[in-house]
């Protein structure tokens, strides 16, 4: 029996060698891949052992790691609490990272390739390895004004520098305190998480980018752009009846509160936008046809595609348009038209920037732990949906909205403001969404802004326009210094 015994002994050796080879494969070859898998929360725990980089706004850390005496050497803190939560996200022992803490994790944790040489130096000098800092484009005055304006409501504010695409403000309410998700006390983290999870509306959502909503009359700016593109002028007189009967239907599109747009039943395009006349734009939509409207919407970025700033931005789009009835509703920003608040700000910024859409971005630069700049974002032209000429005409019309029409509440003392209001129906028993998008100063735009208040219960003009006015004023005041 000894010959087969020897063979069995050798087979066992082979089996165990297989085990050892496989373990080598997992622990050496696949080690990096497994370690960096986003579902692997172990590395996160290990990251608490080195100083994580800060997230900086205007020279002040809004997320920073402070040393502790505990087993985990560093504690992540967000000194401004809820103010920047929608952008920074959290860095949690249990729930991983989110937002900038997630997308810029490699740099913040120090494992980014751009820090490789430095890590090598750390090894030799015995310096404690640390992560790099992320400097955001946000402006504290804009952010504070946005959060103050949204106090007590569910909504979002996005502000952009139209000439660069830099995001000056991004706020979402209700918000939460990321410090409480980033503590070292698992029970407290879980408790707070469950509290957030149970809350409705969800405070963890960033409404500026996570979700899209019907824009209502904001969309009339895009329809106007398509009209101007196709030969109309702001002075062209268009039909503006009291009611617009939907084709092949007994239903009608009324104007807001059932008012009539003009005693004569027709008015210049600029007046139709100024008072946000539904019937005029419904007719205009049908006259222009689906293709022209879709083309213009896509040119502005309502193309059904997500993008990154580097946070992921939900897609905006106009959806399927089955017939003329749907087209009429689409033209007034209802039906399946959806926009993120960021997209709305982007539309305003494009008009402000002579028709050139700059790619929006949140990260101004990234720095090594010794504050040397290792990378910075340069502004990038992204799209050009309209000519400078048409942009000027649209600006004129949007100035009229704020000066004489539905957007009066966005006016700023001594500054000409351009804008458009939106009041979008959601359903019969839910209050309307209230929108405003605009920019200022109209002749030399420094800031474009979009304000979204979910189910605000009023109109875009009286709920959202004042918030937009305050946000733009806060920024322009700062520039004056």
């Amino acid at each position, binding site marked *: 029996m000894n010959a087969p015994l020897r063979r069995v002994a050798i087979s066992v050796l082979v089996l165990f060698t297989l085990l*050892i080879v496989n373990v080598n494969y997992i622990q050496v070859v696949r080690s990096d891949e497994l370690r960096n898998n986003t579902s692997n929360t*172990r590395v996160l725990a290990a990251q608490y052992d080195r100083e994580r980089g800060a997230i900086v706004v205007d020279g002040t850390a809004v997320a920073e790691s402070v040393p502790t005496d505990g087993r985990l050497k560093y504690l992540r803190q967000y000194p401004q609490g809820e103010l920047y939560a929608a952008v920074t996200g959290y860095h949690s022992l249990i729930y991983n990272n989110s937002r900038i803490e997630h997308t810029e994790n490699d740099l913040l944790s120090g494992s980014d390739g751009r820090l490789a040489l430095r890590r090598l130096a750390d090894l030799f000098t015995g310096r404690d390895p640390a992560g790099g800092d992320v400097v955001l484009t946000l402006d504290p005055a804009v952010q504070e004004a946005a959060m103050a304006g949204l106090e007590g409501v569910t909504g979002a504010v996005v502000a952009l520098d139209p000439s660069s695409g830099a995001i000056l403000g991004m706020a979402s309410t209700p918000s939460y305190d990321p410090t409480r998700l980033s503590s070292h006390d698992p029970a407290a983290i879980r408790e707070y998480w469950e509290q957030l999870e149970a809350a409705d509306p969800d405070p963890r959502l960033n409404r500026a980018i996570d979700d899209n909503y019907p824009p209502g009359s904001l969309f009339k700016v895009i329809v106007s752009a398509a009209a101007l593109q196709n030969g109309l002028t702001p002075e062209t007189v268009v039909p503006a009846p009291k009611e617009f009967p939907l084709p092949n239907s007994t239903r009608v599109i009324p104007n807001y509160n059932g008012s009539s747009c003009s005693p004569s039943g027709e008015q210049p395009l600029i007046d139709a936008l100024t008072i946000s006349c539904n019937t005029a734009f419904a007719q205009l939509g049908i006259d222009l046809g689906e293709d022209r409207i879709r083309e213009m919407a896509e040119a502005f970025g309502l193309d059904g595609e997500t993008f990154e700033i580097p946070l992921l931005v939900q897609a905006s789009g106009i959806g399927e348009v089955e017939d003329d009835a749907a087209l009429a509703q689409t033209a007034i920003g209802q039906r399946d038209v959806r926009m993120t608040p960021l997209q709305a700000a982007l539309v305003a910024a494009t008009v402000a920037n002579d028709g050139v859409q700059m790619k929006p971005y949140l990260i101004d630069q990234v720095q090594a732990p010794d504050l040397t700049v290792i990378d910075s974002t340069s502004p990038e032209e992204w799209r050009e949906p309209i000519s400078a000429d048409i942009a000027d005409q649209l600006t004129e019309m949007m100035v009229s909205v704020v000066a004489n029409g539905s957007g009066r509440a966005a006016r700023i003392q001594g500054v000409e403001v351009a804008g458009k209001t939106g009041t979008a129906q959601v359903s019969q028993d839910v209050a309307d969404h209230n929108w405003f998008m605009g920019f200022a100063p109209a002749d030399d735009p420094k800031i474009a802004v979009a304000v979204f208040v979910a189910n605000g219960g009023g109109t875009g003009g009286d709920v959202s326009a004042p918030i937009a006015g305050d946000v733009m004023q806060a920024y322009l005041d700062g520039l004056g210094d």
Partner: protein
Amino acid sequence: MSGPATDPRAPAAGTTPPKRRGIEAALLGFAVLITVVAQCIVDLTITGALRAEMAGFSAWITALWVVAHLVIRKWAPYADPLLLPAVALLVGLGLAVIHRLDLAAEQVESTVTREDAPVQLIWATLGVALFVAVLVTVRDHRTLSRYAYTLALAGLALLALPALLPASLSEVNGAKIWIRVAGFSIQPGEFAKICLVIFFAAYLVDKRDVLALASRRVAGIELPRGRDLGPVLVAWVLSILVLVFERDLGSSLLLFGIFVVMLYIATERSSWLLIGVALFAGGALIAYQIFGHVRARVDTWLNPFAYQDGAGYQLVQSLFGLGTGGLFGAGLGGGRPDQVPVAKSDFIASAVGEELGLFGLVAVIIVYLILVERGLRTSLVVRDAFGKLLAAGLAFAVAWQVFVVLGGVTGLLPLTGLTTPFLAYGGSSLVANFVLVALLVRISDAARRPATPQAGPPQRLGDAPTEVVQQ
């Protein structure tokens, strides 16, 4: 074929082989050192201080192995000196990892905080007690062959018991392989394994000549006669039944593998291996087609990341742990092995890999390899056919079980419900494996013992058997 005149256990006459008990004592000392140091490292890393019970623990562990060593000195002086130290090292390491996971549960304030390490220490103590009992009562392993059919019956009963019991008493995580009484969970399959290996050895020694008869050559392979296929078919049906009624892929694979390999060793016919593999492949294929849970297991194994929030969660977490551990590991107390479900029992190897790294895990695999190869070596050296087959079967059982478990945890094979011998938390497994090693120690003592009558004449052995069955 036995008798005092031609003692089959006698090596070459005239020379007295060294007993090598000194080596065993030294290696045991090393194992105790590792055990105690590992516990200290765990405490220092996690809580920052040594716990008060440390002195008592060290004394207990030392006493355990001193007793086992002295019993070997007295009742099996020529035993292989590596078997017990290998076991001691694995048990000690297992205790450290289990203690470490106990502390982790406190750390994250898990709701199921339980001190499992002290319980495991009790089980180890019970295991050593049985180890001693086996060495003292079974003075000659050949006596066991007399109880082959009794043991076979006992083994089958143990195997079938969980299947016959209601699920509330026998099912844990989908596998019906437990008996749960009064807060205790017993896995009778671990004991059935040993009973059946003893039976296989006795049976095959008896029938090997018949089973080795070849009828015809097909493609260069001598196939056995059709009517001799009976036993292998019975073993095959048995393992299929285990698979179907207990949903236990591990035990099924284990039993059938052990039987086929023992059949091969007994008959020296490789055709048995081919028949075994073919039968198993056929059974596995049918099981895959018919049973959803088998299919789910295989799918999860092939692509764990596709199911990482569901059925693949365990394996994916295990791979994360291993990958994060890398070459050197996070150090005892430095990783997050608690993130792997059932890390104390089924997935203890991934905890070792995460905290002790590739080097630690490979070291553990090599300790197992030493244990198994020493067992197989015993089988080579021992003269009597029953001892040879028994030692080979027991050693191969450990090898096969370690391969299937570690293969499952590292994604090489589908996951099974088997436990990692000596290392994993679990009383039945630990105690049963102590009995297994006691038998190997007993046979290895016979293998190297010089031909003197001090082992006692066979007639005396007749006194012992009633005690043997009690275990």
